[in-house]
């Protein structure tokens, strides 16, 4: 029995959502609509009980500073601590890795011509821990092993959407050749539209975001060809994070079925988007 990718999740990773959970504010009128769209996913995930999540996110000047800027960095360590992002560590469980599968993916992808950076020690910031909180709430320990996959979307150029999609395809091939019975999910995080800088700050593009969500379902390949400049113009400077969702989409193969979808504006400066997909044979 080999490992297999059974589902993909797309979700924003807004730090303020994590703060709302940590401070017990999720029932407040401002936050409740953003969280309501995750209740379906929480119930579904309890049934799915995945063994491993490959969690695609970006580091926000936490583990990586300007000294070293890896395009694709895969966490192969045993454990990853929540980062101190300037206001102390989030009080969430230590993230337990899956070194056997992570190293297997790293090796397979490198032979498949993806030049991965291998990381054995790093802290993980809100980009990784907020999605876990959104889907699993506040457990004593995370109910899943996590393989962090950090993508540079801060210093230009980030990888193209097409490259991200193709990496997802390579990750799927790697997982399918891992000789262990593992239920693996892949999550793409970040976005949706937001701009955190300059006079254009606060930009939100509901229409564009929803067309992006539309095209994650089915067999469309259009999303892999969206150029960076379109994300920048249409979804704000930080909307570029959505290329990370395409690693998730690529890993689900030829076609997908949408199980759940949610969109809400705002969470702080950001449009919250969320989708649950399963691969179609």
């Amino acid at each position: 029995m080999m490992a297999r990718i059974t589902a993909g999740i797309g979700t924003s990773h807004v730090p303020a959502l994590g703060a709302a959970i940590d401070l017990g504010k999720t029932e407040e009128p401002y936050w409740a609509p953003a969280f309501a769209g995750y209740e379906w996913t929480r119930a579904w995930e309890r049934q799915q009980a995945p063994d491993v999540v490959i969690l695609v996110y970006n580091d926000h000047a936490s583990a990586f500073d300007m000294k070293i800027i890896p395009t694709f960095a895969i966490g192969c360590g045993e454990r990853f601590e929540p980062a101190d992002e300037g206001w102390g560590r989030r009080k969430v469980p230590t993230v337990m890795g899956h070194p056997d599968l992570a190293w297997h993916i790293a090796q397979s992808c490198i032979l498949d011509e993806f030049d991965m950076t291998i990381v054995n020690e790093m802290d993980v910031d809100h980009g990784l821990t907020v999605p876990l909180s959104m889907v699993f709430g506040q457990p004593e320990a995370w109910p899943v092993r996590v393989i962090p996959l950090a993508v540079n979307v801060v210093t230009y150029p980030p990888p193209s959407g097409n490259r991200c999609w193709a990496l997802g395809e390579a990750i799927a091939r790697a997982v399918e050749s891992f000789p262990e019975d593992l239920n693996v999910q892949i999550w793409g995080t970040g976005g949706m539209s937001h701009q955190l800088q300059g006079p254009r700050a606060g930009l939100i593009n509901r229409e564009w975001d929803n067309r992006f969500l539309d095209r994650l379902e089915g067999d469309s390949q259009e999303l892999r060809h969206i150029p960076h400049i379109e994300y920048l113009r249409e979804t704000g400077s930080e909307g570029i994070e959505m290329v990370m969702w395409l690693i998730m989409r690529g890993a689900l193969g030829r076609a997908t079925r949408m199980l759940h979808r949610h969109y809400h504006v705002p969470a702080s400066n950001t449009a919250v988007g969320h989708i649950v997909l399963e691969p179609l044979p």
Partner: protein
Amino acid sequence: MTGTTDIHAYLAEFDDIPGTRVFTAKRARQGYHLNQFAMSLMKAENRERWKADERAYLEEWPLSDEQKQAVLDRDYNRLLDLGGNIYFLAKVFSTDGFSFLQAVSTMSGMSLEEYSAMMIAGGRSPEGLRSIREKR
């Protein structure tokens, strides 16, 4: 591979986006020490030294006088012009106890109340803010 992208044409388009500084290699080089200074505030002991004497702390870093002044002024738009990146600058405003919402509103030229209200009403429309050249 979707075809070769010319790096000059790729970069030139970024200057056509209103009110936006894309963090290009040029900015990353200009702002290297500025961003590394901000990064140093990730450590609690550095935050304490910084709060005790900001000017003295800045003197330990090879920043330009303009960069130092913009940090002291918390002029985030100016810091973006001088090579700062928002995720690094976040360490400065987090140390001040400001949220992203508060810090980002200062860059938009709006009060926090006006900015928050705009976000609750659905955010800033992209209409007219996509391209300077094409006025769309």
